[in-house]
């Protein structure tokens, strides 16, 4: 896949992951499918957390057991050791099988790994996420993940012959399942009727148009008033506006200088220096005012190419 360069291409790729869910009261709710990369990252994080937790618990249990002499076979174990062994084997089973289920049944519907990368599990039909669905989607993990990985390690040695290669191919189908459907569901999602969505936590940023030169178009530094004409404002579209918004919110001086210079060149102004922020704030406010009023009349300009 070539890296997208044009803003329209970036938007297309983002739009491909957008879904509209109509809630029971008829509000169209935008959802966005979690990207495969984010999901892989979440899985790796979860496996790391699990491994570290189970290994450290094992070490604690073994450390306790070291005090007693280990005899041959299970039948020769003294009572205390035997109890520790039971605890250890049950811990292992329930940790590896229950971790995902326990966390996904919580109010956030996400494992710690998913929470870190900002994903959550949801039901595909817009109903509630039931415990059955969570159990179902996590029971298939063996076939989707562990078996294919084992096969990948074993098959190339050629012991299984043709059957081994066939099995490997078959399991790879399950491993690569998310790449074969547009909702990037794994097989577990398919049989549970779930999908994994982006759940970003956003803080509400301050309004830009109440501060600085955005409000009245005049600079606090020089007192100069910036007024842009219609033809100067009609160069850019919504994509550039939102880029400009990001630059203003980040507030990095070098980016502000570069953007101000670019805009000046584009609209044919003489680029001054020392007052770039006020210039950009004024430009931003007036461009947004123009685009929003056009929007009310049903005219939208996506970017400078449209």
């Amino acid at each position, binding site marked *: 896949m070539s890296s997208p360069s044009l803003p329209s291409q970036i938007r297309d790729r983002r739009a491909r992951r957008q879904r509209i869910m109509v809630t029971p009261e008829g509000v169209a709710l935008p959802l966005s499918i979690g990207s495969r990369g984010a999901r892989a990252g979440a899985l790796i994080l979860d496996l790391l957390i699990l491994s570290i937790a189970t290994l450290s618990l094992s070490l604690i249990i073994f450390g306790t057991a070291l005090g007693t002499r280990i005899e041959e076979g299970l039948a020769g174990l003294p009572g205390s050791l035997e109890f520790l062994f039971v605890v250890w084997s049950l811990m292992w089973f329930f940790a590896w099988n229950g971790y995902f289920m326990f966390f996904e049944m919580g109010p956030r519907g996400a494992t710690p790994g998913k929470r870190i990368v900002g994903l959550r599990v949801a039901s595909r039909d817009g109903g509630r*996420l039931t415990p059955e669905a969570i159990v179902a989607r996590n029971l298939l993990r063996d076939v989707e993940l562990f078996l294919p990985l084992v096969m990948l390690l074993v098959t190339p040695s050629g012991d299984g012959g043709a059957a081994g290669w066939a099995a490997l191919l078959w399991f790879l189908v399950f491993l690569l399942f998310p790449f074969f459907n547009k909702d990037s569901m794994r097989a577990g999602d398919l049989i549970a009727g779930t999908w994994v969505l982006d759940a970003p936590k956003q803080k509400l940023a301050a309004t830009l148009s109440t501060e600085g030169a955005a409000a009245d178009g005049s600079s606090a530094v020089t007192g100069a008033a910036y007024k842009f004409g219609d033809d100067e404002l009609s160069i850019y579209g919504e994509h550039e506006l939102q880029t400009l918004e990001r630059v203003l919110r980040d507030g990095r001086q070098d980016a502000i200088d570069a953007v101000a210079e670019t805009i000046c060149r584009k609209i044919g102004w003489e680029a001054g220096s020392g007052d770039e922020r006020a210039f950009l704030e004024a430009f931003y406010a007036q461009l947004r005012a123009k685009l929003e009023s056009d929007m009310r009349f049903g005219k939208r300009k996506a970017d400078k190419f449209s």
Partner: protein
Amino acid sequence: MKAPTLSMFTRKAEIEATPDIEAAALRSDRFRLQREGEWRRLEDILHRLEKGKLRKLSDKDVLELPALYRMAASSLAVARETSLDSATLTYLESLVQRAWFQVYGPRYGLTTWLRQFLGGNLSRAIREIWLDICVALFVMVMGTIAGWLLVARDVEWYYSLVPTQFTDSRVPGASREVLMESLKVEESASGMSAFAAQLFTNNAGVSILAFALGFAFGIPSLLLLIYNMAVLGAMLWLFSSQDLTWEFAAWLSVHGTTELFAILLAGAAGMHIGRKMAFPGHKSILAAAAEGGRRGAQVMVGVVLMLVFAALLEAFPRQLAGQEARAIIGIFMLLFWLAYFFVYGRDKTAEDTA
């Protein structure tokens, strides 16, 4: 995770300064500033809900949640048509989404779910996959008969069928005494619970695999059942050749009735999903798969519970109890499961589980 800061220890200001609505140059920003307070209030309620601090919510908050949610949703609809402030839009989208998950995700706790599950949902799910259970049962019986016949025709089959861990003393040609020895009653329970834990984790892993394979293949899942039962058939032949059929059956039935039943259910649940996807009826394939999957998952939770029972039975009564006690326990367990799955809860009205 938030980084710890000093401000953690200071109380938040109760009321933030009201934003200067008139100062905003843009109409869309004025719209936003008018509603910001309510959005923040909703966000605060959501935050506490997600933390699981239900007790900290006042009745007023709970009652307001749906109203605030609808308000935010309509704000989003308006903002999309009038505002180009991407910060506001992304914030609102994530806010409405979070609110939607809380408003339409009335979850009951794990205990409530378990009570409903044991109180009828499990039995209902098992009754719903009766057809697959019949197929799996037929396959397992066939497998047992096949194992018996193969070994009866040619003893060499015994060595290729039965895994080496069982062929310690239990080989064709072994005398009656040696075979009796393998069925003997143990004197003490030492080491038994460890044995049980091992059995459980191993069997539970195998049955989860059988379920998952049932979805992935269907056919190999059946083959797995056939092979395992063929081993049983072969050993049955071995013991019967020395007139120990009854003793062997009693020894096996203690946990076997539970364990074989659980494996039967696991295979059937996996097959059920495959069958639903192959023959979805008037539903879409995805919907049929989801329905079958949820049903299968319920059965699988039941299977894991059964395997816990089976492991306990295998470790203690099988090794410690005598001949008749073994048979009685085995038959009782079988009747218990049958009654629980197919008789219990038949007349109950279905509770809402969707």
